[in-house]
């Protein structure tokens, strides 16, 4: 018998009698009145930086300035003309200083932001860049993870990720170090 059938049959034989799924009513949970305030607070906790802007024009200006100052930038933000094409090869992305990527929405309880593969160009971009900038509109916030998963169909794209702050580790004596393998900084630009 194949390993698959052996496993499935033993599991079927040994499993307990049916136990029902719980009824989950998460609307009973308290949610913050001001999602933006709660999100901003959590973003700081996870090591992120908040930048507020009125609209894309300010952002566009900022990126132009940085580019002319010689910063190696990949800009993937939508609503600002054609996004940059992202090279497929990881080695070519190794030297990217800063990536600007549109987030789908943020989660107030933990400062995480959902990012779709389509927004990244290449899956590795938000991980390999030295600094990551995620761009969100102020109204794109949900209170908690229950509402977050309500909002997305996770298999819509091949890959998607919640990102909460810059890459970090505390594997040496529990000392927090920002910038383990991935970005050493995460900024979130909120467009009002």
């Amino acid at each position, binding site marked *: 018998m194949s390993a698959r059938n052996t496993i499935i049959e033993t*599991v079927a034989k040994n499993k307990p009698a049916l136990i029902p799924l719980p009824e989950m009513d998460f609307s009973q949970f308290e949610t913050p009145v001001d999602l933006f305030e709660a999100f901003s607070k959590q973003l700081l906790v996870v090591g992120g930086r908040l930048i507020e802007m009125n609209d894309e024009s300010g952002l566009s200006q900022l990126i132009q300035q940085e580019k002319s100052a010689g910063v190696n930038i990949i800009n993937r933000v939508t609503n600002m003309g054609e996004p940059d094409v992202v090279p497929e090869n990881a080695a070519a992305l190794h030297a990217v200083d800063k990536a600007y990527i549109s987030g789908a929405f943020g989660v107030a309880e933990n400062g995480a932001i959902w990012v779709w593969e389509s927004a990244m160009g290449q899956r590795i971009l938000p991980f390999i860049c030295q600094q990551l900038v995620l761009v969100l509109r102020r109204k794109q916030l949900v209170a908690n993870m229950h509402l977050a998963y309500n909002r997305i169909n996770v298999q819509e794209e091949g890959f998607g990720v919640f990102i909460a702050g810059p890459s970090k580790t505390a594997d040496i004596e529990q000392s927090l170090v920002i910038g383990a393998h*991935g970005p050493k900084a995460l900024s979130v630009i909120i467009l009002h």
Partner: protein
Amino acid sequence: MSKSHAALAAEFTADENRTDWHDETLWWVRQKRDKAVQQIPEWEILRQWASAIKEHTLSKLDEYLAIFEREAISNGIKVHWANDATAHNEIILKIIKEHSISKIVKSKSMLTEECHLNEYLHQSGIEVIDTDLGERIVQFRGEPPSHIVLPAIHLKKEDVSETFHEHLGTEKGNNDPQYLTESARTHLREKFIQSELAITGVNFAIAETGGFVVCTNEGNADMGAHAAKIHIACMGIEKIIPKAEHLGVFTRMLARSATGQAITTYTSHFHRPRPGQEMHIVIVNNGRSRQLGREDFRNSLKCIRCAACFNTCPVYRRSGGHSYHTAVAGPIGSILNPNLDMKANADLPFASTLCGSCTNVCPVKINIHEQLWKWRQVIAEEGLVAPSKKMSMQVLGYILSKPSLYRLIGKTGRWVLRHMPLLVKFKSLNPWYKQREMPEAPSESFRDWYKKNRRS
């Protein structure tokens, strides 16, 4: 069997300062967990739901596994099944050989530790680079991880500095965690870019969507998986959850329980390989279906590997992960490992005071301390307890079932303690007396007093 937990723990505690440091470091993690969960008024409801979702899943696990497989295949993922550790290792070796690959990176997967994948591949001349910082440190040192979330928690920064000096050429004596992490970053980013194949674990596998979720803080699973042209994700059969909406419960609990973070930095959802990439999933049994059949122990399979039970365990904190001589240490390991090898791990259910703190911190409500008690019964029944201990229990059980004999022995014992105390003061024969005084023996028992004072 090699040395028992008690013997290894005695070696660990021999360095009292280091034991204090280990205890305090992990207690600090426990406190961070407390602070995080106290901010969630619905925490106990979430525990209830998480437990119920997992129990439901186990009761339909065969069906969910089949659904997961079907959906994953339709997503373009190659699904493999391994009934034991060897099969798991062979499947991975076969994929590596088929593609003639030599550059392999691996992010944290306790399953691959359980299956001893690295040693197996090493024997075939294949080296795997562990990319989790803690795992890389212990890999350099040729040690197993001592904790499932914090693999190098038994080491001080001076130890890491020595190791990095030797393997990465860092400055001798520079113990700054920032500097050491930066060196590892440079070293490992190079490995990521060169890697051809990435192995990751799986935190949750979603039956209805055929995808899986991997959680890290460092971003190493993503760096590996998105750079390599082949991604192999290894999962135990118990990683399944029915629906994506259930992730809402588990992602709220995992990091809060593990480190006190509200969520891990990266919660990555893989559903399809990227263009030109191959994605494999290896679904592993390795004794889990046997555990599912043990009524008293099946709900240990609810575990999401947060390690909260490690951090709270007063025994773990003072004996270190290596004293458990298994891939998964701590209280949860002590109820999982007897299923894998009862004889070799017969000591582990006894490495506990049954204080119950593990059960209380468990986000999926595994009754860990009750299962420890139950494993003790099974192990005794199987004759895996030392004959001397068994005999003393038989004698004790006999005395305590015979009131007059009990009184006689009690009286004699107290008399001996009062008049010939040296008899019990052999530290080698009486472990109690090694570091503790004996209680003072009164001339009369309560029973004697009662008869004199209350019954006439």
